Structures are given as structure tokens and as C-alpha cells.
């Protein structure tokens, strides 16, 4: 059994789908933070069989919950202060995400005007469908840039 020590302040992202922790690390841009990060891959889980866990020691306001919710809103976000869990955040699908994924429709204006932001809006909350704000092309999981 691998032991990773407690953190004093920051967050623990639990119940990440096994193998997805590195893409979350990238999307949250944790490489740009000068702080301690523990990436635990394939931890045993009663609920999921295998799961990933991320522990990040940083200011708790630095986490972009919208990006996280878009990637996987089933992730448990434990907020840690003074070594204890002080809050559990519920992730809600964001209404809009900017520059997280790219529109791959070759007919979209974003395909020729490079400076435009890639914005996707939540078109169907129940089916978790996002569409490009400009061309309304449906975002497909297979093309997820994560």
C-alpha cells in the first residue's frame, strides 16, 4: 500500500476515472503552480474498482471548478484547511467553457481565424451536450482535447 502524506491547505480530487488524472493535471494547469502535487494512479476503490486521486497543496481559490466539472462532474472535490476536510464541492456542468476544447468543424469560423476563442455552450444539460457557440457543432467525446 502506497502512503501519501496529508496536505495542510488545498484540495483533494477523489473518484477520478482511472487514467484521467494527468489530463486533469494539464487542464487545471497545475504545472504552472509552484506547489506540491501528488498524482495517484490506479488506487483501489470499492466503488470504482480503480480510481485516480490528485492532491494539490495550494490556495483553495485557485481551482477552476468549471473546467473540472466539464471534464468529469462525478469527481469529488474535498477542500482541505489545517489538514482537515472543511468542504466538499458539488460540481455542476458549466453553462459555457472557453478555450478548454477546440471546435473541429472545418467549416467553423474558428478554423480560419486563429485569434478567436473556442467557446462551447451547454445545449442540453440532461444529455450533457455542448455545442460550439459559433457554428453549433456538437462536441464529441472522441475529439476531447484532454
Amino acid at each position, binding site marked *: 500500500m502506497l502512503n501519501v502524506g496529508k496536505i495542510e491547505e488545498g484540495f483533494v480530487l477523489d473518484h477520478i476515472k482511472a487514467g484521467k488524472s494527468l489530463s486533469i493535471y494539464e487542464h487545471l494547469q497545475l504545472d504552472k503552480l509552484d506547489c506540491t502535487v501528488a498524482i495517484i494512479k490506479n488506487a483501489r476503490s470499492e466503488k470504482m474498482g480503480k480510481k485516480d486521486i490528485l492532491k494539490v497543496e495550494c490556495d483553495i481559490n485557485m481551482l477552476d471548478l468549471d473546467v473540472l466539472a466539464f471534464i468529469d462532474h462525478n469527481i469529488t472535490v474535498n477542500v482541505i484547511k489545517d489538514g482537515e476536510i472543511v468542504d466538499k464541492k458539488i460540481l455542476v456542468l458549466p453553462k459555457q467553457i472557453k478555450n478548454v476544447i477546440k471546435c473541429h468543424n472545418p*467549416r467553423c469560423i474558428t478554423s480560419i*481565424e486563429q485569434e478567436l476563442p473556442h467557446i462551447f455552450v451547454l445545449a442540453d444539460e440532461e444529455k450533457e451536450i455542448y455545442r460550439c457557440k*459559433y457554428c453549433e457543432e456538437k462536441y464529441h467525446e472522441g475529439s476531447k482535447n484532454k
Partner: protein
Amino acid sequence: MKHVMSPLDFTTEELTRLFDLANDIEQNPAKYAHACDGKILATCFYEPSTRTRLSFESAMTRLGGRVIGFSDASCSSASKGESVSDTIRIISSYADICAMRHPKEGAPMVASEMSSIPVINAGDGGHQHPTQTLTDLLTIRSMKGRLDNFTIGLCGDLKFGRTVHSLINALVRYENIRFIFISPEELKVPDYIIEMLKAKGIPFEEVIRLEDVMPQLDLLYMTRVQKERFFNEEDYIRLKDFYVLDTTKMALAKEDMLVLHPLPRVNEISVEVDNDPRAAYFKQARYGVYVRMALILTVLDLC
């Protein structure tokens, strides 16, 4: 400030007001002949489109306004690499309203975000063409007297035809509309539209042969099978003559059925049908000017 990106930007109540205004313009053109005196419309067409551009220009001219613009990207700064965002910021200084056509989907929306004048989407690739849909709706309302309680057949290229998708989305907001989709297997209505109709409980049918359903129709919306939508010429040649409306098929239709077509037609409606009183497609082109006149007045807040 009101931009027009999609026909669904208007509520059905707003559409009623818009169409009332268009009908009043039709009846009393002199009343509106100077409504846009001193105003300038910029027609920014990044790809050629005779009909849409000229109908916008005709609409503004009939309102007493003036028109500037370009009719091809090669005649604009786009050929030098200028972005849509930059172009519209410049155009905003020159004109009071802009109608934009662009081959790339979403370009008019990008323009609207940077513009200080109203932008009307005059067609963006295969995405939206709101003024065509408004033209279709005005034609139906003016000639049928209503936008509810009818069976409409849509025939031809239902897969790639943006006018068809747009019209379906606009009509589902009215009561008791039944759709009959008439197309070859290769050009059927996309799944997302079928899913939407099922979710809303709107009756529809998909058939192969136009003859089989002619007697049921109150409206027949014909479309062109466009060469540019096909990857190879062989498929195009095989399918283009699949559905041709002629007098034999018209004989099966109701006496008050209307035939609409966004135009241009190639050969999907035989010229012999043109003299049939049920052929509404040339009148439809005239309604295209009235609806654009009403739209210009509405977005400029001059009515």
C-alpha cells in the same frame, strides 16, 4: 441593439409583428418610401449570392436608404488577410446596419460581437440563413392566412439543405403542424431533427416517393440537390433528377396546395408548373424583399 443570427432569435409574437409590418409595406409601399432616408446598409458578402444580396439592396433602396458593400471576398480586405472582427469595426464607422454572408459558419456572430451597428446574418455556410426562413414564413402566412394547422411536405436534399432545417425549427413553434419528408435515403433529414420532433411529439413521416403523399399536402417545399454538397460527381448525377415536380404530379395535389422553393431551381420543378396558380416560388422572392424591409426597419428601431 438587435442582431439577427437565427430565425429563432424572434419569439412567435415578434414574428407576428414583423410579418404584420411586411404585409403593411406590401399594401402601402409609399408610406415607407422614405423611412430609411439618410441610412446606409453595408452588404458584406464574402461569397457570391445574387438573390440574397440584391433583395437586401432592393429592400434598403425601397426604404429610401443607400447601400455600400462588396460581393465577393476577393473584393474586400479579407483577401489581404483581415479578420471579420476588424472588418466589422471598420464597417461600423461607415454604415448603420450590415448584412453579412460568409462561407464559414458563425462568422456573422463573430461580427456581431465586435459591431456597434446591427448585423443580420445573410447566410453562413451550411449553418443559418434566417432571412430565407423569414421569407418562407411570410409567404406561407400571406398566402395561406396562417402559420398553423397544416401538413407540409419537404422534398429533395433534406440532409444538407440549411433552409429546410431552419424552416422545420421555425415551424415546430406553431400548433398542429405535420411534416412529411420526401427524399432519397442518401439525403434524409439529419437524426438530430428527427430526435427533436420525437421529443416534442410532433407528427412526421419519411417517404421515398413524392407521388405517394401529394394528395395529403397543404404545402410542398422543394429544394435543389446542390452539386457542391457531394463528394463525387457520380453520386450527384445519380440523385439530381430523383425528384422532379411536373404537371402529372401536380394533378395529384389539392387545389389550394402551395409550392415553395428557396430558388434557384435547376430542374427539380419543371417550367410547365410555373403557370400553375399553386406555384408560389416567384411570389416568395417578392416576399423576400418585404420581409427584409420589415427586418431593416425593426432592427434600426424605425417602426
